[in-house]
């Protein structure tokens, strides 16, 4: 039988252990310097700068000119580290900040979105990852090309994937454009220029290899930044460091603020409803009108379920995420990568509500009287950042309840300020979001570059190019530069919030890509005609939906919500694909053989075998 040994670097754990220790050491060092009042001016951007610098160093240290390393990291990424990358790609900066904001505003109603993240990784792990790994492809279109043995199908898939990948990339850029000026006090144009330089430094040395190892480092920063401030605030509020397990005791107290001595949160403002929750997709200010549990809710149980389903399908079909399964050593490792992804995203899902609850507890606690005459420093700072606004509407000389208005991205950024943590922790909050956004952006950028350099050029198919040794890497690196410049230029004109673009990308993936992916693997009868029948209505429906709703901002289509219509489009796409498959000719023996090969974990990866067989044979000698 065919065997191929790929050894994982046994020192990887040590390297990332050292990275983590260095970063924690830096945090402690900054705390000491801050205590001595040495570096107050630079403290806010020190941790973001350090995270970026270290990730660039890692990228430069992993430079490669080997094609397999450049496109699939040599298929030597251990599952734990792959899970870290999946974690940061699933959330991204725009998602992490946006989901925290949704939970802050909607409480338990926002859990539909959070479970969409976990559900998406579960679907990918159960139904897709191992088969993508067995196919051994470098891009998702080439998976379809191999599955249906058709260059046209691969080309169509590449065209279909362009829009969602561009939306995901623009989502992160839009978020960075908003965040950069907050952190560094520089213009959004200069922020994008910095991101351009960083992205090129991370991607050009080694493509997916340098990107993946840099993403792991950035994901560690995100995890630390997500957990450390929570532990400190949890200790302050509950005397226990396990924030994920302690916030429950505060939910009742927050509810008592509304019914007891405190200001009733929703006394004079209309609560958010399903038709209006999309207002959260804007970067506008909103008063908190829905309590975490109980009372009048913004969404029904069915709304939450539909939301969860669409987000889950979108996450499962996200190309940059699915392709991480190709980086694992084996099919088993690919499955395990997604298990680690679920675990880490699960940790984020456990932590995000704690951010919302702690913030609500500190701001709406009637014991903390915010007198207009002596407002705390954090109110001024968050106001200057454009995250919070407060006005004494009833003229009683103090601020409370709906007199506070919040930006959606208030969650992670505001907690260290409201809890009066020091500058280092505030810097860590910014570094968390910047690192998540950069890691996610380079992931989308690489996917887009691969789509354009390998799937959408008209000269050769991907495999033909690899066989004749066409200088793929030079072409790919050139495409990375062009795509980066193109996206950064485009981002200058984007007005939509990062979160709205992120959700739009998910809707496109869910409607356009998810049905064809599932049917291609799980339906024996699936044919090229079925592929077209599933792809076209799904993609066209999703594009029309996003155009009508202006990327989700007007959450109404003929009286139905965005996600409700999206789910209908997905179902329609599935039905259409099945009908198309049964209308066309039955797949022949060779088609079925490819399908069975993809479904069998053992043996050589399909793409590698096809490449080996297509290689010109060397003369075997003889007389």
């Amino acid at each position: 039988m065919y065997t191929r040994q790929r050894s994982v670097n046994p020192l990887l754990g040590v390297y990332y252990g050292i990275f983590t220790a260095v970063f924690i050491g830096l945090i402690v060092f900054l705390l000491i310097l801050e205590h001595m009042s040495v570096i107050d001016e630079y403290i806010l951007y020190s941790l973001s700068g350090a995270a970026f610098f270290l990730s660039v160093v890692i990228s430069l240290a992993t430079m490669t000119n080997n094609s397999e390393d450049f496109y699939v990291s040599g298929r030597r990424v251990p599952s734990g580290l792959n899970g870290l990358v999946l974690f940061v790609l699933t959330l991204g900066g725009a998602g992490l900040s946006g989901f925290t904001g949704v939970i802050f505003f909607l409480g338990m109603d926002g859990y539909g979105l959070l479970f969409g993240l976990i559900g998406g990784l579960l679907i990918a792990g159960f139904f897709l990852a191992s088969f993508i790994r067995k196919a051994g492809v470098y891009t998702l279109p080439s998976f379809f090309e191999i599955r249906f043995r058709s260059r046209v199908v691969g080309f169509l898939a590449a065209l279909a994937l362009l829009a969602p990948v561009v939306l995901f990339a623009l989502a992160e850029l839009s978020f960075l454009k908003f965040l950069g000026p907050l952190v560094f006090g520089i213009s959004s144009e200069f922020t994008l220029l910095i991101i351009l330089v960083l992205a090129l430094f991370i991607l050009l040395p080694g493509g997916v290899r340098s990107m993946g190892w840099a993403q792991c480092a950035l994901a560690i920063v995100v995890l630390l930044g997500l957990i450390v401030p929570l532990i400190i605030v949890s200790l302050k509020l509950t005397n226990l460091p396990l924030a994920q397990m302690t916030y429950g005791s505060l939910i009742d107290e927050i509810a008592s603020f509304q019914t007891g001595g405190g200001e009733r949160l929703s006394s004079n403002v209309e609560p958010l409803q399903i038709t209006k929750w999309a207002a959260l997709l804007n970067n506008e200010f909103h008063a908190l009108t829905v309590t975490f549990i109980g009372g009048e809710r913004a969404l029904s149980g069915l709304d939450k379920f539909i939301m969860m389903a669409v987000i889950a399908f979108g996450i499962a079909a996200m190309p940059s995420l699915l392709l991480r399964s190709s980086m694992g050593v084996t099919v088993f490792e690919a499955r395990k990568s997604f298990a680690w992804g679920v675990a880490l995203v699960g940790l984020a899902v456990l932590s995000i509500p704690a951010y919302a609850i702690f913030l609500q507890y500190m701001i709406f606690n009637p014991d903390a009287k915010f007198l207009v005459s002596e407002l705390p420093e954090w109110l001024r700072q968050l106001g200057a950042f454009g995250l919070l606004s407060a006005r004494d509407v009833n003229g009683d000389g103090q601020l409370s309840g709906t007199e506070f208005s919040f930006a959606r991205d208030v969650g992670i950024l505001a907690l260290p300020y409201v809890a009066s943590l020091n500058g280092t922790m505030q810097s860590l909050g910014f570094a968390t979001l910047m690192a998540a956004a950069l890691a996610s952006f380079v992931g989308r950028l690489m996917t887009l570059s691969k789509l354009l350099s390998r799937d959408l050029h008209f000269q050769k198919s991907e495999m033909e190019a690899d066989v004749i040794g066409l200088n793929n890497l030079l072409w790919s690196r050139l495409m990375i530069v062009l795509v980066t410049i193109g996206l950064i230029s485009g981002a200058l004109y984007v007005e939509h919030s990062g979160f709205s673009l992120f959700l739009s990308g998910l809707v496109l993936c869910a409607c356009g890509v998810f049905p064809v992916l599932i049917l291609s693997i799980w339906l024996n009868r699936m044919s090229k005609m079925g592929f077209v029948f599933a792809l076209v209505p799904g993609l066209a429906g999703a594009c029309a939906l996003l155009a009508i709703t202006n990327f989700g901002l007007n959450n109404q289509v003929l009286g139905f919500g965005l996600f409700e219509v999206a789910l209908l489009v997905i179902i329609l796409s599935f039905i259409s694909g099945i009908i198309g498959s049964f209308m066309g000719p039955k797949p022949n023996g060779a088609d079925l053989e490819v399908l069975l090969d993809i479904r069998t974990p053992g043996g050589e990866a399909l793409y590698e075998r096809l490449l080996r067989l297509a290689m010109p044979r060397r003369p075997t000698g003889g007389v």
Partner: protein
Amino acid sequence: MMENERFWPYWAATKRLVVVLALICFGGITLGLIFSHLLDEFRLFGFPLGVLLTGQFLVLLCIGIVFWFTGFQDHIDTHYGADEDL
């Protein structure tokens, strides 16, 4: 690649496993999302029960199931001779 007569039983076992596990995970999530508010009147470890079950227990259940799946699917692969030869 596996022979046809060994492949189909393997594929049936794989399908059964992923469908059952997906039903458990998504059934639990759906029930949690739709009915958790009914349990919020009860308290456990200081948490409203609905929040505890949905926001904590379900997340941990999904994590546990997906790790168990990787192990058990590998066992199925080996049992039917579809395992990897690395």
